[in-house]
């Protein structure tokens, strides 16, 4: 029976999946299985759907069709390497692996292979220094911007004075979760709040003692860097100890619908930092519904359109498509190479007018990438969850982050990397 089913399935699959012959290749190192599938699925869907939209509506970018070969990593670095090598040969223009571990792995490899990495809102924060990391781009915002944005929000709530306040960072005990600690420590010194950390080990299914500790210490604010099952449990436990949800602020990876839904009504008021818009009130989603979902070409079942992580996938795909367009303009060829793609990313300029043209007005900030600054403007907003309507909404504008504190940290960390690996500054 298994044989029959496999045979039938394979024949049918062969007939359904007509290979798209295209030239601009953006591999999607996705994870639709494994411990982080909940976040990986909508992201991969959003990324693929936007590219499909461009193919269906505009005939690709500059007349060249886009292709998004998917490769399953299950958030595993070894599979990530396998996927990178497997898709590299297909003429990949840029990688967006959505995993800090895989990003660290690929930074030296991709640089040597002259393929850019685009890691919006994740990966190695200090890669914002384009002088050292020539092939890594993490605009429009990185973790340290996120940390600063959260602190700025708290500052706003307290009239600019945080003296004597107590802030706890609840974080994933690994590379990703430890990223914001230096920034928050520096910000704590600057604004005079008392900062401490509470780590949670992978997977984070059990956080009782952490939350008992938080309950005992009665912090004024809890910042949160989590991913995967850790998010759902943390939101639930915060509700359990009746921590005021509006004082509980997650980073953008801890602020999706599926993170708060298991906790039900109790999650109302939970906040998260965002670097792009929420909801599906942007014209681009109408187009996605019309050209992609209703045409039966969606990567998923279409139910994710407009969710936070899906939107992030769309946003990342849009940036790459715009950068490809820019690269075509710079080099005057439609069929660009990965090296030219890198130039496109480095000279990318996103204006509000262009965003409006794309049907994404106000979805993200306007900015310009430069050789030295691969990190973009570092602006971020705060979004808040309302369980009754089942929606996130932005409660602030995209505000700047404290670059006075962040920039020296970026410089220090990237220069340590440059010294360890003998990297010459690339910008003149």
């Amino acid at each position, binding site marked *: 029976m298994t044989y029959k089913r496999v045979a039938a399935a394979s024949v049918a699959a062969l007939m359904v999946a007509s290979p798209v012959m295209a030239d601009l290749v953006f591999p999607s190192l996705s994870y639709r299985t494994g411990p982080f599938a909940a976040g990986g699925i909508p992201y991969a869907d959003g990324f693929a759907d936007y590219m499909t939209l461009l193919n269906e509506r505009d005939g690709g970018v500059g007349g060249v069709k886009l292709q998004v070969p998917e490769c399953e990593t299950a958030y595993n670095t070894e599979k990530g390497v396998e996927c990178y090598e497997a898709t590299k040969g297909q003429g990949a223009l840029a990688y967006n692996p959505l995993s800090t571990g895989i990003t660290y792995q690929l930074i030296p490899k991709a640089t040597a292979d002259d393929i850019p990495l685009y890691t919006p809102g994740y990966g190695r924060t200090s890669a914002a220094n384009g002088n050292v990391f020539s092939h890594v781009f993490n605009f429009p915002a990185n973790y340290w911007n996120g940390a600063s944005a959260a602190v700025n929000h708290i500052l706003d709530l307290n009239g600019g004075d945080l003296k004597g306040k107590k802030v706890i960072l609840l974080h994933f005990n690994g590379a990703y979760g430890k990223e914001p600690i230096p920034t928050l420590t520096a910000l704590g010194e600057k604004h005079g709040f008392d900062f401490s950390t509470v780590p949670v080990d992978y997977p984070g299914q059990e956080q009782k*003692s952490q939350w008992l500790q938080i309950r005992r210490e009665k912090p004024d604010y809890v910042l949160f860097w989590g991913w995967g099952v850790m998010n759902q449990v943390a939101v639930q436990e915060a509700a359990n100890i009746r921590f005021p949800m509006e004082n509980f602020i997650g980073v953008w990876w801890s602020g999706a619908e599926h993170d708060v839904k298991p906790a039900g009504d109790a999650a109302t008021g939970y906040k998260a930092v965002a670097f792009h818009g929420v909801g599906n009130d942007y014209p681009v989603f109408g187009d996605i519904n019309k050209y992609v979902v209703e045409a*039966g070409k969606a990567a998923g079942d279409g139910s994710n359109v407009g969710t936070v992580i899906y939107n992030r996938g769309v946003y990342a795909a849009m940036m790459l498509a715009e950068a490809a367009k820019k690269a075509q303009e710079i080099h005057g060829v439609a069929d660009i190479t990965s090296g030219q793609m890198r130039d496109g990313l480095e000279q990318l300029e996103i204006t509000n007018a262009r965003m409006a043209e794309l049907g994404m007005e106000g979805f993200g900030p306007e900015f310009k990438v430069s050789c030295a600054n691969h990190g973009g403007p570092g602006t971020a907003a705060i979004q808040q969850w309302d369980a009754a309507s089942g929606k996130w909404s932005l409660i602030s504008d995209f505000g700047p982050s404290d670059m006075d504190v962040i920039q020296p940290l970026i410089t220090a960390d990237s220069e340590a990397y440059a010294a360890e690996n003998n990297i010459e500054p690339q910008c003149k």
Partner: protein
Amino acid sequence: MSEQLLFAAEVTLNGLMAGVLYALVALGFVLIFKASGIFNYAQGVMALFAAMTLVGIQQGQIPFSHLINAIFGTEIHHFPWHVPSIIAIIAAAGVMVGFAWIVERYILKHLVGQPDIILFMATIGLAYFMEGFGDMMWGSELKTLDVGLPQGLNETVLNVTDKLFGYGFFIDNLDIVAAVVASLLVAALTIFSQYSKQGRALRAVADDHSAALSVGISLRFIWVLVWSIAGFVALVAGIMWGAKSGVQFSLSLIALKALPVLMLGGFTSIPGAIIGGLIIGVGEQLFEFAIGPLIGGATQNWFAYVLALIFLVFRPQGLFGEKIIERV
């Protein structure tokens, strides 16, 4: 009472509650190990699969819908109904019984009399298979599990302790429910294995397979029975943990929490699993409370193992495990 002592008391109480949950997972291991000498690596995946099945049935998901859609190009996802929790739980338990039967029929039957390591290996294969099969059947995205269990701070405990000590203790309602359910489950299992005919047969099988066979006990029936019960225990564990975090892959990792409990309590003892669970639960919470801040926190993952390790050095068969007698 001083504040620190109160905190410690609160932590201990919560540790006990967490310990009950660990014990629940450990119970599944013990049952199968007792009856068939198999260390069932798939127990965690069984909990995940059971919880997925429960949610799938409850929400009227169509099994294999993704596969069907991919093959036939259809767009089906859900049946137009919503099954009440209690019926869904019964149905999921039924699926676990069917699963036990399939395991016996297609795997264990062929491996009777093989060494333990082989049977262990078979459960590895089973775990891989079920992980893929569960995802294929119900999809790998996160599912919210809601069977109407109460969650959140318990008011009574808060008020009573507040009156008594001037500091309100935090106890999660879900933990209280879990503790009650686990106690009932253990009581029922103990009564079953001590006083019912099948229970006696089960213990006979645990003592000696061939002797049990020779007095007319059906090994196959006992195995199906014990795997069914383990499946049911997995379902209960899946519900308790899934209610908190949603049903997702990480649920299968709760098996890791059960291993130190098993070491401490002994692989063959049901009361051992309970007491081991409580000790580990309290121990790791207290350690994190007292020592954790000094050495940087997040100690739970290893503390349970180190505790069990130190303990085993002095009593290698665990708290209640059968003493290993070796003859040359």
